[in-house]
């Protein structure tokens, strides 16, 4: 082990750790804050919240987004809600319970100190958002409404119709734009990070490409925050937006930031299945549908009859059969794996045989169409818009899809990566969710990191740099990084191959989905590790990028992102191969009990796997951060 993985987790009673830590950290006096330049990359929940909050404190902030407006970041697509331990419902919620649920839901693979802090600041997030004008759902008395969500027995989820992510992001975007109007944040849109600059082991800036003009440019700063989201698009088809990518995090990894737990990816069970080879992305349908829908497939193989012509006796309600207690409401991972099993057996439904039925006919008979419409009307409309099928008449078809990645850049308690001065916030880091994220917790973590954690912890780091100007962009470290990027761009422009970038992304996605998807085994993972570099070689020799590096060139943008996905996918496979246990979103076929439940191995795998870059073509080296559980004692998650 070469890396020193010091979590900097404070000691003492968990309830006091964050308070004590905040007191122990050094401060930067208000007049000195303007002497520090901070670069924030990404303007989703974490990025916009951090950029706005740091600027309010007085730091000089530059914010970067590759979108045409900060408001378009993919946080905007989150539907369900945001958790907070407000206990407004008087149903026994508390900070400790939210902490407990999150550690347990993460299958005991997260750092307790971080999770407790997350639960603590969750209450401040809701206050902050309401003050900004986020129109959360309300009851008739005017107080905030809550609903319940998977993995919890209390109602602690705040929501704004089915558009919670949109409203929270607009709140953070407004705060950011206020700072832009005051001149405390300089905003760079259509600007993509393509390298992180490190001098003498410390992060000192970034290199970007202007997506409108093609200009390559360096920016320097005392600290850099990567708030650049997750890597679900390694699967090609996922619920992530088209442009979501791992490039910023990956390029930081190549510069020395350890990448943690890449095999922890989450599959959402209720998405609309792909309809053809050219499907570009998958759409998620709220999990709440499983409250009233019954999941089934035909008992026979290759049954081509329409659903209504398959008699009751020839249907297999496989979740109700295998899990009589939970039935259709088993947790996400169990529902997903079982759908895969029946489809792999050849019992899938729909034109491509790639889905299972989610049938509402019983609910409609029992409750009446009006009640079903009231509960799920907007979802039924969305389904009909996409598939052209009326779910009141024919069963919905659903299939699991990747939609969140728990893994990411390794960070300590201060959210700093293994490169001093480089931070990772939100989905881009690995912290807080362990091996499995609970519903409505992604928004909570993004905003916690951005509003309430990074603004404090960065001060402690910057206070030690007082009097030091940032490394100038004329420094050879920047020149070298810029030259490297220009070489890379010209390399891609001159491959002169025959196939599009999307072609190779799709092919990579098939490998990742088949071998590093919902259920993984040694054989498949070894195959992936062998197949990915072969495909990557072909990609690098035969991809075709037309046009010029100047001006808008969407193929050039994509080719670099897909190249990084290739390297990431290989690491995902190696991480999954080494983790000889099943936990959370990582299910190894070899490690299940006789009933098919995941078997964790706390004795050997209760650690964070932080992989260290060793150079191109050389496997990363594994470093381990042991996980101690002083408060929530590891136990088996059971759904029987």
């Amino acid at each position, binding site marked *: 082990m070469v890396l020193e993985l010091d979590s900097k987790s404070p000691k003492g009673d968990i309830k006091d750790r964050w308070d004590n830590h905040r007191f122990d950290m050094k401060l930067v006096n208000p007049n000195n804050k303007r002497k520090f330049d901070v670069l924030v990359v990404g303007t989703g929940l974490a990025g916009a919240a951090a950029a706005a909050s740091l600027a309010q404190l007085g730091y000089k902030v530059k914010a970067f987004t590759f979108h045409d407006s900060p408001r378009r970041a993919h946080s905007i697509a989150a539907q369900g809600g945001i958790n907070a331990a407000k206990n407004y419902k008087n149903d026994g919620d508390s900070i400790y319970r939210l902490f407990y649920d999150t550690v347990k839901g993460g299958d005991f693979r997260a750092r307790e100190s971080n999770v407790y802090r997350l639960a603590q600041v969750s209450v401040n997030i809701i206050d902050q958002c309401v*003050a900004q004008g986020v129109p959360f759902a309300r*009851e008739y008395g005017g107080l905030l409404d809550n609903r319940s969500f998977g993995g919890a027995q209390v109602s602690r989820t705040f929501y704004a119709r089915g*558009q919670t992510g949109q409203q929270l992001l607009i709140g953070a*975007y407004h705060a950011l734009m206020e700072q832009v109007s005051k001149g405390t944040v300089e905003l760079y849109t259509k600007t993509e990070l393509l390298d992180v600059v490190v001098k003498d082991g410390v992060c000192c800036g970034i290199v970007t490409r202007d997506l409108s003009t093609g200009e390559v440019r360096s920016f320097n700063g005392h600290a850099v925050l990567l708030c650049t989201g997750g890597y679900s698009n390694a699967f090609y088809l996922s619920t992530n937006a*088209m442009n979501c990518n791992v490039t910023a995090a990956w390029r930081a990894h190549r510069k020395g930031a350890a990448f943690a737990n890449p095999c922890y990816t989450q599959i959402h069970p209720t998405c609309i299945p792909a309809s053809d080879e050219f499907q570009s992305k998958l759409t998620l349908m709220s999990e709440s549908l499983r409250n009233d829908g019954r999941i089934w497939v035909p008992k026979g193989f290759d049954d081509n009859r329409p659903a209504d012509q398959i008699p009751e006796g020839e249907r297999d309600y496989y979740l109700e059969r295998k899990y009589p207690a939970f039935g259709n409401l088993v947790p996400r991972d169990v529902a997903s794996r079982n759908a895969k099993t029946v489809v792999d057996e050849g019992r899938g439904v729909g034109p491509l045989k790639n889905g299972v039925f989610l049938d509402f006919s019983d609910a409609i008979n029992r409750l009446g169409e009006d009640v079903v419409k009231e509960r799920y009307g907007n979802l039924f409309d969305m389904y009909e818009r996409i598939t052209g099928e009326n779910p009141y008449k024919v069963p919905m078809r659903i299939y699991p899809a990747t939609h969140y990645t728990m893994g990411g850049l390794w960070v300590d308690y201060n959210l700093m990566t293994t490169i001093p001065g480089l931070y990772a916030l939100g989905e881009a880091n690995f912290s807080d969710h362990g091996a499995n994220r609970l519903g409505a917790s992604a928004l909570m973590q993004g905003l916690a990191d951005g509003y309430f954690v990074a603004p404090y912890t960065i001060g402690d780091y910057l206070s030690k740099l007082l009097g030091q100007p940032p490394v100038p962009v004329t420094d050879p470290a920047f020149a070298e990084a810029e030259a490297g990027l220009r070489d890379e761009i010209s390399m891609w422009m001159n491959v002169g191959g025959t196939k599009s970038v999307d072609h190779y992304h799709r092919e990579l996605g098939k490998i990742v989905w088949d071998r590093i998807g919902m259920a993984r085994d040694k054989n498949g993972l070894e195959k992936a590790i062998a197949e990915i570099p072969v495909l990557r070689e072909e990609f690098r020799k035969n991809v075709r990028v037309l046009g010029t590096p100047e001006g808008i060139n969407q193929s050039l943008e994509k080719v670099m992102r897909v190249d990084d996905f290739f390297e990431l996918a290989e690491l995902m496979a190696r991480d999954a191969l080494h983790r000889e246990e099943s936990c959370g979103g990582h299910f190894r076929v070899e490690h299940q009990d006789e009933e098919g439940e995941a078997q964790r191995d706390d004795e050997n795998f209760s650690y964070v796997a932080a992989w260290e870059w060793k150079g191109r073509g050389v496997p990363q080296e594994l470093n381990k951060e042991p996980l101690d559980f002083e408060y929530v004692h590891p136990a088996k998650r059971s759904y029987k």
Partner: protein
Amino acid sequence: MRVTLKIWRQAGPSAAGSFSTYSVDDVKDEMSFLEVLDVLNERLTEAGEEPVAFDSDCREGICGTCGLMINGQAHGPQRGTATCQLHMRTFKDGDEITVEPWKVASFPIMRDLIVNRAPLDAIVEAGGFISADTGGAPDANLIPIPKPVADAAMDAAACIGCGACVAACPNGAGQLFTSAKLAHLNLLPQGQAQRWDRTERMVETMELFFGSCTNHGECQEACPKEISIDFIALMNRDYVRSKVKNRKLIGQSFP
């Protein structure tokens, strides 16, 4: 089915543009409109012709990145639907479909179907926020907000900032966007302190970039979130009031 696409091609902001015609066979009902463009682009690339540049991201109708004039209609023929959620079953075999970028002077064309919508951010920057620095917020339930108020604010806040309202307007007016942003904040109790300043600034910034509203109502028809032009009336009322408001007395006049 087979469709013919007449697509606006333009190499850069200052280049001259023209229509190019492409035919795409084997289009399926289930494909989204943008997936047809994906297929076309893949074929163009393999044939050595530069792919058509167009913007899109979430493809779930929420991020507001996409936006095309399809047969002269912003976001195409289906009501309440962004371009990315438009599916090919809306069209039939043999259709010729004209595809253009938003055609408004305020949104200059960058390349092919991509425009620059920066003026929308400029309007928000002018005052589209409630100043509440991180950390100082009181408990979220301190101020009850009647449900109809919260619901109306949410109706306005549903705006995705795509710019279809501007593109659909014969005058290229920015009223529906600006009024939705204003109503979201002006309706809420938290937004009262800055209400009149906000209204003045945002409306006057809007007028720097966009045309005037003459109540055609095309914006409402084109809006993928079906935002009502009632908000424009609210904005107009607030703008007039902002001009006569004695701001020292704001605390005495809950609107």
